[in-house]
């Protein structure tokens, strides 16, 4: 097969399963051509066949455009394993018929068939109600496996899509007869903006929302002088880092305080599939096994992640308006690690939709076999997993005392 441009060579990917011609577009580089066809650059060796005859030559040319191969008749991209690189081509999806109603989201489902050595991809468009049904089923699985009926459950909410979907799902578990205690904390603009949404949602489900005001949030951390906002303190001491890291601690401490008052050990937050995988991948690169999924014991409390098998795309399809409001209230993430691990999860999920759930199940099983034990840190006043280095502890303490960095 020849391309339309007379001087440009034909491009084939050569596999043990046969030679697949690849169409080029314009004068793109080989890198873009591979990327467009979902062929990993790291899996191919590039050989070129001279126009005037001769043996194929190995050529390092990912950055070369097709117009630079004037002396070449064919570019042969040898796949360096005997696997079929096109089995999992996620672009070959079949769109499933949808029953008429407006779809709020869509998701690619993948069937991995060991018998046929095949992968089938299905694009499923989903209505809000379908999304809610999916989330309710997944949440129900976690709750029924981990809580006795009639339990008190303290739920961290933000007014955004994840916590709204979580509350909705919990409200559907009539058989469990749970007493749900939603808690929202304030102190930074995107949290504060979520309060009216959370209030509205709790009214809808007949739940009583506990709002932890800014001053109490600071007091939970041991801050006595409330003159400076938490986010300003954080920015001063940890410039360029992300408030989310402090946020997850604050939510946990607020939920624990409320759970203690109620006399229940059960608390939960809205970590979804991508969140648990992001954490687990980070921990793996850090030489640590996964922390408890979908439940972890921190001191005498059991922190549950009922949304652990729920992709954010489906969660956001439950309450599209609230999800959009949540997006509009966000700060950008600057820490390289958080950017890196989320990016990897999304790449995996987008190219291999069924694999991320398998990975999550694997991590969950590992976490059950080797549970993480958290220790109470007397100085900090809460549980941590491992020793906190002195310089970091000092910075944290300075933030709490708002004394600024010494010259």
């Amino acid at each position, binding site marked *: 097969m020849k391309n339309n441009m007379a001087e440009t060579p034909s491009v084939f990917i050569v596999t043990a399963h046969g030679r697949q011609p690849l169409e080029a577009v314009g004068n793109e580089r080989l890198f873009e051509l591979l990327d467009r066809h979902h062929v990993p650059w790291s899996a191919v060796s590039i050989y070129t066949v001279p126009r005037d005859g001769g043996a194929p030559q190995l050529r390092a040319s990912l950055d070369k455009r097709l117009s630079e191969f004037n002396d070449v008749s064919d570019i042969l991209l040898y796949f360096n394993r005997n696997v079929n690189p096109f089995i999992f081509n996620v672009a070959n999806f079949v769109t499933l018929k949808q029953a008429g109603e407006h779809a709020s989201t869509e998701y690619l489902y993948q069937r991995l068939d060991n018998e046929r050595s095949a992968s089938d991809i299905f694009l499923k468009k989903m209505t809000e109600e379908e999304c809610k049904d999916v989330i309710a089923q997944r949440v129900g699985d976690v709750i029924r496996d981990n809580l006795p009926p009639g339990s008190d459950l303290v739920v961290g909410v933000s007014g955004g899509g994840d916590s709204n979907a979580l509350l909705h799902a919990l409200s559907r578990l009539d058989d469990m007869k749970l007493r749900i205690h939603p808690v929202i904390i304030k102190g930074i603009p995107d949290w504060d903006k979520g309060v009216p949404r959370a209030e509205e949602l709790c009214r809808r489900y007949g739940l009583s929302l506990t709002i932890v005001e800014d001053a109490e949030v600071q007091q939970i951390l041991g801050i006595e002088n409330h003159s400076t906002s938490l986010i300003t303190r954080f920015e001063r001491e940890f410039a360029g880092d*992300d408030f989310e890291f402090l946020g*997850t601690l604050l939510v946990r401490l607020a939920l624990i305080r409320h759970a203690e008052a109620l006399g229940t050990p059960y608390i939960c*937050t809205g*970590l979804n599939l991508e*969140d648990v995988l992001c954490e687990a991948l980070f921990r793996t690169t850090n030489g640590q096994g996964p922390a408890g999924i979908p439940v972890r014991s921190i001191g005498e409390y059991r922190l549950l992640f009922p949304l652990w098998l729920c992709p954010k795309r489906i969660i956001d399809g439950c309450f599209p308006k609230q999800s959009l409001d949540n997006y509009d209230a966000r*700060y*950008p993430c600057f820490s390289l*690690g958080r950017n890196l691990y989320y990016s990897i999860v999304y790449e995996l999920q987008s190219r291999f939709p069924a694999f991320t759930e398998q990975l999550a199940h694997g991590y969950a099983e590992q976490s059950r076999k080797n549970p993480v034990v958290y220790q109470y840190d007397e100085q900090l006043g809460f549980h941590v997993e491992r020793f906190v280095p002195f310089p970091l502890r000092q910075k944290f303490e300075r933030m709490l005392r708002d004394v600024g960095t010494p010259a």
Partner: protein
Amino acid sequence: MNNAKLASAIQSNFDLKTQTVNLTGFKSGQVEHLSLAQLEGMRSARKPVSASKFGLETICGASCDTGAQ
């Protein structure tokens, strides 16, 4: 940085989402001078990237090392 400047920087970050930017950063034509030893050092001996810039997960991460809530 004083509180007022900090507050302004924080607000500026919050408003980024409404501004048109170029995040794709195409680097065609740029030349770097890195030796193979340096490159191999990056690849094979690199320390893991901490979740938070300052490693805050060590203090805060029992509920999620990567900051999800």
